[in-house]
């Protein structure tokens, strides 16, 4: 024991609150440091749109967009399944909600305001401007992010509804309930009426009519294709940034503690209920955004297949393979899982069989996933790997 430390503590274990208020540095550098990553992400997004798109060409740019959407999905699911250790299997449900809601916003807004559901043009979407916008931006540059946010928010609201049962359920029971929720969402969307085709029809149907005219089981077609590399890189970046900032904060540590040991977490003062529900809400929000991006890439808000559990399983595979709780792991897995079938013919044919086997083997050989909760930039991950490598060479146990 360290005697000096004990004396120091005795004299100065002031309330943490006073410690916090005591140290208050200047506001300006803080603001800069807080905003810098966002600036970098925006810059990257612009570069992706301006430079990368041309370099990649149509096919690969398209693939990159899919990868980006999958990163948003995998990282957001990591917040629930990885951070808090609750097992959600209905993530595709939120994807669907975001897709349909944001689709409804862009489609019907364009239809009623500009007389056509077609894209109103947007520089950030890489489209020529057809209507007047704000300053040098096109109308679509404003409409699209607003629609995405609305989709995300509605999805987050549903996340709240799904998160609430998690107060009383654990593990596999919760998994089944989220799967059921996802299905309910899908079934309910399928009950919606056909999309309204003309401004007059939309006008007549009113807001409620438009909100229920989502194309039903056929999917919601004719959406303006706003999604570009810019938007995808932007949101993938923001999702990772937010996830990272949560993980390295009081709230994030609370989430991880719930996953490690719920009873101990409560005994340490963590409100496990609120923590879990927050995780569900945030994850649902970003999944909703991903849904919006995906819908405005295809021009169709997700047919039933995209909202179904097959899609949820896809996302789970990424999260599990990457490491339950690792943001960079999930993002990496999203890249690999999306790209591998595109590059390897053999993988394309047996795609799901290979991933299923990978899932099973991973659970037996490396139960925490590739990276566990750690990130690729964590020094201790590499040290750990190195040490293990050395001991293996030296004969090991």
């Amino acid at each position, binding site marked *: *024991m*360290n005697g000096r*430390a*004990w004396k*120091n*503590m*005795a004299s100065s*274990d002031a*309330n*943490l*609150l006073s*410690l*916090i*208020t*005591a*140290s*208050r*540095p200047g*506001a300006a550098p*803080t603001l800069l*440091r*807080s905003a810098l990553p966002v600036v970098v992400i925006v810059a990257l997004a612009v570069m992706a749109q301006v430079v990368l798109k041309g370099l990649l060409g149509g096919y690969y740019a398209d693939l990159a967009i899919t990868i980006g959407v999958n990163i948003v999905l995998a990282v957001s699911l990591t917040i629930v399944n990885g951070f808090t250790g609750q097992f959600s299997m209905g993530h595709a449900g939120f994807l669907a909600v975001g897709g349909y809601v944001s689709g409804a916003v862009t489609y019907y807004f364009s239809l009623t305001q500009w007389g056509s559901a077609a894209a109103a043009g947007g520089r950030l979407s890489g489209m020529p401007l057809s209507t007047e916008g704000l300053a040098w931006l096109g109308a679509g540059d404003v409409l699209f992010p607003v629609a995405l946010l609305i989709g995300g928010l509605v999805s987050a609201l549903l996340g709240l509804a799904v998160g609430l049962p998690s107060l009383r359920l654990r593990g596999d029971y919760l998994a089944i309930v989220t799967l059921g929720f996802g299905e309910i969402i899908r079934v309910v969307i399928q009950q919606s009426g056909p999309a309204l085709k003309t401004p007059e029809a939309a006008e007549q149907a009113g807001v409620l009519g438009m909100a229920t005219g989502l194309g039903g089981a056929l999917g919601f077609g004719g959406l303006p294709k706003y999604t570009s590399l810019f938007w995808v890189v932007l949101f993938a970046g923001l999702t990772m940034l*937010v996830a990272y*900032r*949560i993980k*390295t*904060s*009081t*709230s*994030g*540590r*609370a989430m*991880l*503690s719930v*996953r*490690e*040991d719920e*009873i*101990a*977490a*409560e*005994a*340490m*003062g*963590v*409100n*496990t209920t609120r923590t879990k529900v*927050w995780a569900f809400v945030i994850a649902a929000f970003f999944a909703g955004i991903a849904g919006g991006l995906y819908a405005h890439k295809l021009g169709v808000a997700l047919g039933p297949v995209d909202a179904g559990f097959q899609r949820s399983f896809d996302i789970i595979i990424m999260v599990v393979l990457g490491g339950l*709780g690792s943001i960079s792991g999930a993002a990496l897995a999203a890249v690999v899982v999306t790209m591998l079938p595109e590059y390897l013919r053999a993988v394309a044919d047996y795609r799901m069989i290979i991933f299923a086997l990978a899932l099973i083997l991973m659970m037996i050989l490396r139960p*925490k996933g590739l990276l*566990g*909760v750690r990130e690729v930039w964590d020094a*201790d991950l590499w040290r750990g790997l190195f040490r293990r490598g050395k001991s293996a060479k030296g004969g090991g146990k």
Partner: protein
Amino acid sequence: MSLLIAQGVSKSFGGLKAVQGFALELPERGLYGLIGPNGAGKTTVFNLLTGVYRPDEGTVKLAGRELTRLRPNRIAGEGLARTFQNIRLFGELSVIDNLKVACHLRCPHGMPAAVLRLAGHRAQERALAERCGRLLEMFGLASRAHEQARNLPYGDQRRLEIARAIATGPKVLLLDEPAAGMNPQEKKELRTLIRSVRDTFGLAVLLIEHDMGVVMDLCERITVLDYGKVIAHGPPEQVQKDPKVIEAYLGAPAA
């Protein structure tokens, strides 16, 4: 007035009366023990005090505030911290993060501040790192701050659990078999540690322990449970000689 007061606390599981009419008065800076044979209901008492189970009857008060129906996290907030019989650390988290989680209640800046990295959040993180770092130093764990908790040797895990409980900023500390599985040297250090913790932080401590050497040496007063009931209460010398206690431990003397 006593700091922690339990009165008539009872709990049944199914038909089994696990704890019946448990009563305890723990004064400020008191160092008390709770002992009893296997299955006497000691850990259940801890679970009742900390809200893991809800008592069927009885009240628990801490510094005059009623704890009886609160959820465990609120009870921790009121100043009752604990360790667990079968160590429950957050194994995948680093040693220092284990302590940071325990500072949860004293962190006013939540998710929005963290996502926007506001000044408050930064200051909070700095304060957390400083305070937790100091705690680790006190417990001799500073060099292991960034290791995963599950990789610590057993004795360090026990100490980290105590440090974590301290980090919540408690008024009362409940220790569930802190010496279990320790060797004599570690036990000796543990005794010193528990005393220092009490003195430094001005806490009241209640501990469950099987090692009578530790209990008799440390505790000012001892409560003995048998079959869920308090059968004796008093200073160590008195409890040791109590025929009811001897019978509970050693069995009825040969007839």
